[in-house]
């Protein structure tokens, strides 16, 4: 695999198998691939979900996603990383987001995959609106997502503190 770090936003569904094969085409060096798929849940905050509608900020979203991939590339010896994020109206059971990371060994692939998701959650400019039987509501950002993102940077501070 030539090194590749690509991010895209689309309304169409993605096919995990097709993406996986294409991502790894010709590769013989990556001994580890990690993946994450985020899906629409049929319940959220104790209410049934009819549909989940996603919107984004065209231009900025793709830029931020690419920056997150390159930040992961700086931290781990990755051969590639891919993110696909869907927008539009989705139903429970549909896929929302796919992250693939490839490295020689598993820890780099798994950690980078987790890092990318934690940063997409808090930095990529997407917004979700749920339709429930009670009506529509915008999803609120969660503190737990901010904490999940912050934990990667707490260790940065520790490293710096230890070095100095």
């Amino acid at each position, binding site marked *: 695999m030539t090194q590749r770090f690509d991010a895209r936003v689309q309304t169409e569904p993605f096919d995990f198998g097709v993406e996986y094969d294409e991502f790894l085409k010709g590769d013989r060096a990556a001994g580890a691939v990690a993946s994450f798929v985020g899906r629409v849940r049929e319940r959220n905050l104790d209410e049934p979900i009819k549909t989940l509608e996603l919107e984004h*900020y065209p231009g*900025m979203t793709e830029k931020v996603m690419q920056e997150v991939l390159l930040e992961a590339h700086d931290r781990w010896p990755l051969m590639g990383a891919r993110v696909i*994020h869907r927008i539009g109206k989705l139903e429970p059971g549909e896929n929302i*987001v796919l992250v693939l990371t490839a490295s020689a060994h598993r820890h780099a692939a798994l950690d980078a995959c987790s890092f990318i998701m934690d940063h997409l959650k808090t930095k990529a400019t997407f*917004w979700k609106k749920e339709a429930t039987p009670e009506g529509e509501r915008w999803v*609120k950002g969660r503190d737990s997502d901010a904490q999940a993102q912050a934990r990667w940077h707490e260790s940065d501070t520790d490293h710096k503190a230890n070095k100095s």
Partner: protein
Amino acid sequence: MSIRVLYFGELREHIGTQQDELPWLGQPDQAFTVQDLIAELTSRAGHYAEVLTSDSPLKVAVNQNMANLMTPIPDHAEVALFRPVTGG
């Protein structure tokens, strides 16, 4: 001498428009900041004041980079206002 202001998600719905064109109000010796823009919008008729001064957190990007109240807005900038992101 103008800027474009974009609104996304809940904010767009509450303000009732996707974008506004505004004059750029900088001076040679004084920056036009995000805070100045919000003050300008808040003085408008409609739902601007109610939405922009609510307790819900307000996020800002200037030319597609995250910004804060003190960030200067250059002429011809694209400014975006929105609530915290919820992708993934």
